[in-house]
């Protein structure tokens, strides 16, 4: 059986705000076709203030789907619609002290129901942009659709690259076969008929950098470094982490990994991913190191 937190169990055994809500003026009906779960979220919104006065749910789904629905109603009560639209699925999971990776889609369904209910209240049509596939990486809850999309969008060729971009495969490594299958599929589509090539093996060392472009001044270089960090920051913040430039010493770029990133088992992969982007952007071979590796000044 799943390792559910006490909070999940509590909200499942004693769900809050369940059942129909008579005076509801915003209703969101959503479902996940793959797992079959479905959720109806009912809101009663005060038209003057746009404050959610009451929220109820009805859920066809497993323990964590019911707990996620219950948590969602508790979270949004008292919020304005604009505040409620900022509630993410991670907020729902956090409220429940976490969900097993296989169950994160339950919290996604909660967020979608919320968006749908608010759209319904505002008389808008809500369309779902989220597609969900079979779970590939259980360590970081990454599904097949996401991996395939990222592989296509970024022209990825190796398991290592997939790990840099999505984290999938960076933990126990048991899903590498699954990732290779997705790579092989996308790459054969990319190659077209008649020239199918298998994905190359995971390289032991990073690939050689491109030839250096015209030399940058230190200020230009630091600006570029900050641009790279700004680009990866949203990805890290999504997982409650962050990164900050500590120092640049020649070819060595020292960064502070903050929040959930510090001490994370993925630290090496995160730095590897940042390093890859630095090399591409700066056009020279650099090393990205944690600030703890900075030489102690005499």
């Amino acid at each position, binding site marked *: *059986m799943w390792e559910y937190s006490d909070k999940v169990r509590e909200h*499942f*055994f004693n*769900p809050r705000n*369940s*059942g129909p809500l008579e005076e509801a003026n915003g209703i969101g*009906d*959503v*479902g*996940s*076709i*793959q*797992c*079959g*779960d*479905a*959720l*109806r979220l009912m809101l009663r919104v005060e038209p003057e203030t746009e404050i959610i006065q009451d929220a109820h749910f*009805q*859920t*066809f*789904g*497993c*323990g*964590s*789907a*019911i707990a996620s629905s219950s948590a969602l109603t508790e979270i949004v009560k008292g919020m304005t619609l604009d505040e409620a639209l900022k509630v993410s699925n991670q907020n729902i999971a956090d409220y429940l002290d976490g969900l097993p990776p*296989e*169950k994160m*889609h339950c919290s*996604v*369904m909660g967020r*979608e129901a919320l968006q*749908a209910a608010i759209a319904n209240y505002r008389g808008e049509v*809500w*369309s*779902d942009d*989220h*597609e*969900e*596939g*079979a*779970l590939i990486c259980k360590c970081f809850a990454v599904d097949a659709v996401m991996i395939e999309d990222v592989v296509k969008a970024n022209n990825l060729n190796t398991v290592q690259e997939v790990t840099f971009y999505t984290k999938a495969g960076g933990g126990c490594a048991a899903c590498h076969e699954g990732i290779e299958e997705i790579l092989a599929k996308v790459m054969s589509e990319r190659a077209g008929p008649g020239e199918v090539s298998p994905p190359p093996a995971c390289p032991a060392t990073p690939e050689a950098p491109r030839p250096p472009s015209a030399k940058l001044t230190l200020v230009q270089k630091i600006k570029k470094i900050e641009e790279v960090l700004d680009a990866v920051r949203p990805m890290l913040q999504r997982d409650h982490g962050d990164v900050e430039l500590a120092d640049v010493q020649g070819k060595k770029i020292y960064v502070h990994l903050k929040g959930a990133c510090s001490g994370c088992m993925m630290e090496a992969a995160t730095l590897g991913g940042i390093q890859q982007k630095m090399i591409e952007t700066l056009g020279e071979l650099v090393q990205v190191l944690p600030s703890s590796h900075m030489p102690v000044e005499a």
Partner: protein
Amino acid sequence: MDSSIYLDNNATTRVDPAVVEAMLPFFTEHFGNASSIHAFGSEVGKALKKARSQVQELLGAEHDSEIIFTSCGTESDSTAILSALKAQPDCNTVITTVVEHPAILNQCEWLEKEGYIVHKLKVDKKGRLDLDEYRSLLHERVALVTAMWANNETGTIFPVIEMAEMAAAKGIMFHTDAVQAVGKIPINLKSSKIDMLSLSGHKLHAPKGIGVLYLRRGCRFRPLLRGGHQERGRRAGTENSASIVGLGKACELAMQHMEEENTTVKRLRDKLEIGLLSQISHCFPTGDVSNRLPNTSNIAFEYIEGEAILLLMNKMGIAGSSGSACTSGSLEPSHVMRAMGIPYTAAHGTIRFSLSRYNTEAEVDRVIATAPPIIAQLRKLSPYWSDNQGLGGPAAKPGAAFTPTYA
């Protein structure tokens, strides 16, 4: 967990105390290696021989050398399939069914990637095969037919005796995954045309980690594991002697309890099923109820989800299992339920009750009393259900009333 009621015997069973007792000396005084020439080894050798004949008797096999001990049902299944392909290099096709256990299906999926052709026989809404479709697929390039004797989820029994004869008439090997059938229904292999059969110890009150591949004498074979001469070179690796002894004892006990299984256990299963169906609306048994294992009942409770049912039952000390997606870790509900065309809203709410000779009348009564309020409680939460004037029922034409936007 003394007051807990265990109704998940198709998942695994409790090791019979007599089996434990038979095994214990083989961890201590009889620890020898059966291959050794000294007394430590020969004692073990004798015990293995006895166990082999006990298994032989339960299966009704003609020779004790047809019994090959393996580590589990999955190993037996993989050995059978890969052996049939290796031993018949001119054949490239395997016939199986859509409702097999993953031990067969995932192996077949891999074979397809390797370039083999796999035909999966479909089932009807009761989980039954179309033997005319089967007959039409038996051609000279087929290396093996592999079909389960009884389905793990519904207990539905396939006509494997007849299917093996049809295959034999075309000179095609026949394997059956019988892990759910062995010990629950009588089996007599010597009067059949079955070439290979898999069984798993822990489904019949022996420990986990021991299985058997029955291999008819004269059936072409290529081992999966090569190495020592154990099992006549057909399965190398030092014998798991304590577990083999335990499995032998469990087979002896299964023979003794065969009638009980088909009378007492069957009656309790029927009582449970009738008790639930008569009290709860909008639920139905799945599979071929007139032709199934005596211990298994699989009921689909519509408009609610299986994991939620299991969690609430577990709280009341009742253990069952479900075909819902959420209990499997995959996103899909049971492939068996989908193959039978059971709609999502029912497939997700399937609960399997699988009994054993350890279950009592009092336990069945308690489940009959406990389950209805659990179902009612969850239906109250379901958007597909409506509680109109206290008369519970699906929300006016479900699907019309509640039509979620699907991701």
